[in-house]
């Protein structure tokens, strides 16, 4: 596949860019943050996302979705990144939809329909350690009658405090199993955690939570395969978000370099800054190619996507980190003020890096796959 957007993808990107930039620019995040909004995003806007076909971007038309692909979902994530928009798009439309798609079955299909209509919010409860480690799962679901008893604690659950259903990764007798858990069930405790980026996250604890047999998503002990698909989609989505975020931070920085004057000239005239800006441009271009190929691979050969997705996330973390660090430094004093937006980009970049594995995690993963 050529590493350029198709005509349709260009149109979609333009429409997403116009829509999100218009309805949810950085000021939208500021308002939610400063009013300490309880939901953490705009439910009305999410309905509009659904009407645009974005909520069901990964849901087939048969199940009420728009049946687009990962490349298209990535374009939406990119615009979300550009505008720092808090949205259930990641947890629900990317992670949740992928889990349901992969699990299949009547209940999953029914949920997909609601999801695509913007009427169902999901949250993945996976990590238990402060560093992403999908292999370190202590949460357990023990057989109990027809169902299971769930015990454990999860952290960094995006949208955990607003989700209608949690998708909980737990250890069962012979592997991992995914469970759909009602957050209002007895024994479930959810604590919203206010994060540095003012986006949603929560901790969840499960204290002898009783689950019916039909809480199982997919097969018992068959959770690892679903989880791998969900992580691939999530990681590529975060890479796309970081890409959009980085490019916007970079655009604001170069604009500032042209505008700000010191020593009688624009600071962008100083070669010291010029060379750093040009280097950053190159890093972003390199990342973009990796992110595009990762999204394409999810559409075309998802079973092979693991390494290329790790590449994309690793690169997006590296260049995103550089973009916001250079952004704040080149903005100088005003970059340090809360009144200026560039610091918000730095905050979100830090969280998006940490989520589902940072640059080092994914570089390590690639090295392991390569046998060294």
């Amino acid at each position, binding site marked *: 596949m050529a590493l350029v957007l198709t005509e349709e993808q260009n149109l979609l990107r333009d429409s997403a860019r116009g829509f999100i930039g218009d309805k949810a620019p950085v000021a939208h995040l500021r308002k939610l943050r400063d009013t300490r909004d309880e939901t953490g995003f705009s439910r009305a806007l999410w309905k509009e996302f659904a009407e645009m076909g974005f909520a069901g971007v990964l849901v087939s038309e048969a199940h009420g979705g728009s049946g687009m692909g990962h490349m298209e979902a990535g374009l939406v994530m990119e615009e979300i990144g550009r505008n720092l928009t808090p949205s259930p798009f990641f947890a629900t439309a990317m992670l949740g939809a992928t889990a349901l798609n992969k699990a299949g079955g009547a209940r999953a299909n029914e949920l997909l329909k609601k999801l695509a209509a913007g009427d169902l919010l999901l949250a993945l409860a996976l990590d238990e350690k402060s560093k992403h480690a999908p292999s370190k799962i202590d949460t357990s679901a023990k057989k109990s009658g027809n169902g299971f008893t769930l015990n454990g604690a999860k*952290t960094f659950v995006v949208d955990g405090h607003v989700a209608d259903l949690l998708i909980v990764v737990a250890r069962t007798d012979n592997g991992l199993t995914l469970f759909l858990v009602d957050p209002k069930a007895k024994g479930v405790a959810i604590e919203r955690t206010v994060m540095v980026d003012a986006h949603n996250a929560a901790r969840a604890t499960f204290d002898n939570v009783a689950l019916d047999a039909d809480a199982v998503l997919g097969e018992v002990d068959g959770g690892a395969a679903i989880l791998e698909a969900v992580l691939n989609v999530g990681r590529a989505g975060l890479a796309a978000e970081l890409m959009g975020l980085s490019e916007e931070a970079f655009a604001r920085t170069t604009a500032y370099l042209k505008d700000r004057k010191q020593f009688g000239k624009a600071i962008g005239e100083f070669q010291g800054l010029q060379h750093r800006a040009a280097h950053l441009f190159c890093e972003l271009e390199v990342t973009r190619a990796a992110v595009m190929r990762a999204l394409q691979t999810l559409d075309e050969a998802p079973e092979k996507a693991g390494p290329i997705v790790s590449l994309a996330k690793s690169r997006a973390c590296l260049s995103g980190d550089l973009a916001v*660090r250079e952004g704040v430094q080149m903005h100088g004093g005003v970059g340090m003020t809360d009144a200026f937006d560039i610091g918000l980009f730095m*905050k979100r970049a830090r969280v998006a890096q940490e989520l589902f594995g940072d640059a080092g995690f994914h570089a390590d993963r690639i090295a392991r796959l390569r046998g060294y």
Partner: protein
Amino acid sequence: MADIETFRRETRAWLEANCPAEMRTPPDEENDRCWGGRNWKFKSEAQRQWFEAMRDRGWTVPDWPKEYGGGGLSKEETKVLRQEMRALNCRAPLDSFGIWMLGPALLKYGTDAQKKEHLPKIARGEIRWCQGYSEPGAGSDLASLQTRADDHGDHFIINGQKIWTSYADKADWIFCLVRTDFSAKKHEGISFVLFDMASPGVTTRPILLISGKSPFCETFFDNVKALKSNLVGVQNKGWDVAKYLLTHERDMIGAMGLGGGRPLGQVAADAIGVENGVLDAPVLRADLARLEVDAWAFQLAMERAVDLSKAGQSHPAYSSFLKYYGTELNKRRHELTMSTLGSDGLEWESARSQEGDAPRAWLRTKANSIEGGTSEVQLNIITKRILELPGA
């Protein structure tokens, strides 16, 4: 060397006897420092005791002359005192821009009267100072400042605006750069004056930072009167004083590169776990090891800078090296701290995270390479004054 060893022994004994246990724990950046000043309220009885004991020996400023409230110690003795304080983890008894910045400038450029008036109040923590340097249009290009001071015989009338005035809302007096000659070349019409922040016409407005804290202010001067007896150095030659003072500020900010608290590698070992003797995050571990190498070596470079200075071998622009390297190192340390803490380090408001101690500290470090002259300005200074490259 016998004398200095005696001094070391006696100092250690005195510190052990006089530094309360509470003052031997790492201070919380925001809440545990002692800044002094007219309106100062001690945070605890231990803080008061420790401050007063040190003040009474002149050891808030151990190397200043005794007549100005200092301890009158030699450079060697001062170094020993610092070493012994570090060995016991003693907190600084008094933090003060008066000590770090204004004091050294007054010692060099002040009149006798100015020294007698201001230095003891600094040493005794009676007056808290702030620094009026940057302006909205004069950041890295500080010498283009526009705050004007009109000459009215025995006093100036000052009008203009400063920015990034740390703790201006809490300070008693300000040392301030003003333009006293608008016809001269930009470095040559600047003067260095001191005045009371309680003077009519002074207003301050805090600036909220990305760390959610607000140590900085915008400060406005509307026909503020400043006595000429508080002009430091020669009128229109304030740039010399400013530059001298900046080197002291740089030393102070550069010292951030030393870090402090628990070694990050051990924090990581606890948070992430160790397998087969190495941290269970191999790429992060390589970064932590490299940070440790650079940070340890930089600590030695700071020590060497003091030794060079004592031996009269230090280059006057050496502080730009320390400032540049120390602040960049500190930023790197906090980036790696965030990587080490993972999602726990991202919480912004919770008792568990001490209200976001780690992320707020991380964001605050981003200012290190901007305040006191950006990293780029330090590199320019090194290029010009140490490497003597053309056109710098």
